[in-house]
């Protein structure tokens, strides 16, 4: 195996052409995923999580394009590859994808086995039996009865379809799976069941995963590292415990505190005003500035670099001009209370 990291995202900027002009959905994203690592990507709706994920597998919408930056899979640059090359080199064999809204991703007119065979056919030399055997195996791993691989998607419940899609993503043993909101719209128990299998997969294979979700609890429970995105920018990235214990960006700080915790139903929940902005043209400011209680003029004048702060642990980086002032010098909770108090 090469010494290159599994997946590197380097200063990636992605734009969509829209009627109003180019919309920068991801700007300067930068992170690395290592072998066997589970990497979480969290943020509110519209932050650019899916855009980022799609770009890795070369699946941006027609009006989207990588404006700058690099995407490297084991050192090989993917950002300029065409569909055919991607198919040949990475898709499914190396990088598999579980799309958002994956319930609707299964072709309703194809049996699951047919879909699996088709994929196997394109990417491998496996015989029909071998491919099906692998698929059956994966079916079982995700907790589906293997005798149902010849069913049509509509014969499955939502949760089962979700698992089938996971099985499809995994059965060719890719090195990394990008799972975009694999459990939204599922009940907690169902979600827990699915994560149970994802845990098992991590324990039993070398597969890495990029787990995209808006639910930070899931990332905290299942991932090793994470990146918090806001308005197309990565606000903070690092090992989960570091980010949890020692947040370095106001957004991730507030986001964590906005999550209800069943253990403390009386805890006051944090709220974040507004919604992530949509940015047309270059992003030359901190996209969180307008929602940030600590923001200053300077935050709106340039985009903060994503870098480690003085006290942060290895690989823990944040993109905030004021991170030192907010998180090193004072207690963020107190200063926040002070600011909120001033405002009202």
């Amino acid at each position, binding site marked *: 195996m090469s010494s290159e990291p599994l997946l590197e995202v380097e200063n990636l900027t992605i734009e969509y052409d829209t009627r109003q002009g180019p919309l920068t959905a991801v700007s300067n994203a930068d992170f690395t995923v290592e072998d066997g690592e589970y990497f979480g990507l969290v943020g509110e*709706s519209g932050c650019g999580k899916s855009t980022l994920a799609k770009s890795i597998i070369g699946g941006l919408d027609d009006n989207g394009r990588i404006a700058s930056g690099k995407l490297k899979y084991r050192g090989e640059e993917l950002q300029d590859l065409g569909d055919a090359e991607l198919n040949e080199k990475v898709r499914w064999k190396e990088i598999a994808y579980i799309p958002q809204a994956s319930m609707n991703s299964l072709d309703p007119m194809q049996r699951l086995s047919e879909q699996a065979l088709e994929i196997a056919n394109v990417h491998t030399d496996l015989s029909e039996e071998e491919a099906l055997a692998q698929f059956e195996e994966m079916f079982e791993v995700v907790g589906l009865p293997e005798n149902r691989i010849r069913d049509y998607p509509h014969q499955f419940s939502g949760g089962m379809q979700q698992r089938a899609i996971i099985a499809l993503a995994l059965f060719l043993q890719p090195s990394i799976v990008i799972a975009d909101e694999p459990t939204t719209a599922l009940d907690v128990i169902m979600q827990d069941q699915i994560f149970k299998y994802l845990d098992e997969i991590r324990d039993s294979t070398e597969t890495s995963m990029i787990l995209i979700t808006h639910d930070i609890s899931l990332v905290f429970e299942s991932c090793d590292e994470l990146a918090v995105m806001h308005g197309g920018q990565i606000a903070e990235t690092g090992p989960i415990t570091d980010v949890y214990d020692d947040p370095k960006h106001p957004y991730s700080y507030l986001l964590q505190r906005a999550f209800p915790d069943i253990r403390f139903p009386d805890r006051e929940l944090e709220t974040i005003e507004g919604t992530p902005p*949509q940015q047309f043209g270059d992003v030359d400011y901190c996209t969180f500035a307008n929602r940030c209680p600590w923001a200053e003029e300077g935050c709106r004048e340039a985009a903060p670099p994503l870098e480690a702060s003085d006290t942060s642990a290895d690989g823990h980086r944040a993109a905030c001009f004021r991170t030192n002032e907010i998180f090193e010098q004072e207690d963020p909770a107190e200063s926040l209370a002070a600011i909120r108090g001033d405002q009202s």
Partner: protein
Amino acid sequence: MAWNTIPMNVLGKEIGRDQSYLIRNLSRGFKVIWRDPTSRFAFLYLSALLVLAVVGQEITPYSYDRVFYASEGGILRSQPPSIAHPLGTTSSGRDVLSRLVYGVQPTVITGFVGGAIIIGIGMTVGVLAGYVGGWVESTLMRITDFAYSVPTIPFAIVLVSFLEVGFFASIIVIGLILWRGNARVLRSQVIQIKERPFILAAKATGSSRIRIIVKHILPNIAPMAALFFSLGVGYAILVNAGLAFIGVSSPFIPSWGVMIRNAYQSGTMVQAPWWSLPPGILISLTVMSAFMIGRQLEDSDEDERSVTGAGP
């Protein structure tokens, strides 16, 4: 998905105060039509037609049924275009241009009245069936099935014998047949809408059925109704021309269909193309313009299912 639900500021400035639903949507519809060059052309063309429909009969060079005689006394039959008759004359010595301009009004009336009846019946049936459901729905939909299973033109002939064959009869008859497509699609549209929570919310606040239909269902099917109306306008004109062609429409009102019929019956298609081609081309252009505008409205209404093809 996400991106068409988010753009709160993107849509532009805050909409001014107190804009009624109608104005709001008319202006939006207009913008949508104006955006695309072809539909802009269609819009301009139709506007011009409308103007001609109002003033055209006043400004025709001659009376549409005046017969012209040569100095020697014979009728000026099938004269090629000249200065006096820019589009020549018909085989009975009438001025083609005058008839063509005169025919704008009947054509426009056919389109609007026909389109209105089509959408009127279609919407009533569709909304009733979709909203009320139950046996009302089954009955109405079976009637719709029936309307689908009769051949249009022959059935129109049958219906016409119940009315006096005439200009309006032929329009009404068209409306009585072609509503079927609208009814079907609008019904399914209504069924979708009525399942949406805001309808439930309205029920829960105690809105009456009528109120829900008027305040919530109708506005929400309005874009589709607008589309259907424009399609209906086109179909009404087309079918009316067909009826005129086989003689089930008043031949004394020189609508364009009647003009083609007259030209065809006189056998002068080859010899006097100046007579038959203009009405044919104008029919096509008019219907096409109506369709174009419909298509544009359809395109712009992202979440509306497409229906253009599901014509009558």
